[in-house]
């Protein structure tokens, strides 16, 4: 690759237009398939479809998977612990946005 080369890249907003298969999500989040399976078991990721082969993950799943994996790795938590942290963070955000609904 020539360092001065300018590449034009097509960009897509992941959160709005991308749907991931199980394999796509593993690769994009850098997770092992067992980790993504565990996050689905925890209910942190909610794919549509009945089996891993036809699972479809929404765009925001990428950010959720990466956050959970970062928390687990950097705070030395289990994925179960990371899922609890993510739930609490969601609750805090909800409270900040609209305290009356909680």
């Amino acid at each position, binding site marked *: *690759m020539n*360092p*001065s*080369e*300018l*590449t*034009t*890249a*097509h*960009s*897509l*907003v*992941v*959160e*709005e237009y*991308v749907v991931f298969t199980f394999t796509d999500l593993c*690769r*994009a989040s*850098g997770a092992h398939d067992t980790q993504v399976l565990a996050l689905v078991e925890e209910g942190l990721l909610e794919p549509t479809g009945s089996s891993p082969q036809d699972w479809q993950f929404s*765009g925001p799943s*990428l*950010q959720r998977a*990466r*956050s959970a994996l*970062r*928390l687990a*790795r*950097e*705070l*030395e938590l289990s994925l179960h612990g990371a899922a609890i*942290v993510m739930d609490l*963070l969601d609750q805090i955000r909800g409270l900040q946005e609209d305290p009356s609904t909680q």
Partner: protein
Amino acid sequence: MEFKDYYATLGVARTATQDEVKRAYRKLARKYHPDVSKEPDAEARFKALAEAHEALIDSERRAAYDHIAQRQASGQPFEPPPGRDSGFEFRGTGDGGLSRGAQEAQFSDFFESLFGRSSGRQRGRRDASPSSMQGEDHHAKVRIDLLDSYRGAQRTISMHLPVIDAAGHTALQERQLDVRIPKGVRQGQHLRLSGQGAVGQGGAKAGDLYLEIEFLPHPVFRVDGCDITFDLPVSPWEAALGASITAPTPQGPVQLSIPPDSSQGRKLRLKGRGLPGKEPGDLYAVLLIALPPAALQPTKDAYEALARAFPHYNPRNAMEA
């Protein structure tokens, strides 16, 4: 190269036990982890903590660091060892047995000069590679102007890509990408650039590059999700009597009517003038009552006339028990 005081970063004494180092790190890591923390500099703080922990938690690395720190304290200038991993020996090879978290982090030059390079090592992480394999996906952050999201934009960004040469050394290669910033993109969202990740092996597809969007701070407009807020200074008479004024917005000036009897901090909503999108955000103007300085005689006369007109007005009435 700047010397880093890892003990100060973790807030422990030089005589701290490994357990004390671990406890200090865990406590601070919970406070500053960027996914949890609201501190403005959380990301930088956490990175510094992780680096300090990685240097001190391993007794061999800690001994090497203490040796350097002692020389530093005795007034000798800090000089990094002449070559990578030279000067000190570590178990294992190359990365000095860094943890996986450390391998994925980008530590300072100071750390790398002592303990070897951490970046780029994760590429060898996967088990035995098949001869043909799609390239890995890469992630990076890109900082854009708020106005780029309002209008959509075409931006050239520079990326530093770790590349491993034939001899196994990691070098940073610069490349430039021409990226379309879609209109309405929000802070924290990701752009996927197909085929711009790591090169595939054996003719397989290249990976993708994911760019996380971050807005550069704007001097006037503050972002909260898809809503934008800004302070709008008004004169006391505009706030009291009501007025039609021209307000700056990211899409250009608009006529805004200030209702009479508006108080300081009143929020006026301009529906749909936040970030554009399927569900556009709103724009909020927060009124800030600006007082003309009383140093000039005409202004002073006007304030005095106002005071005479309201001899019994006491803004602190509500505070009295």
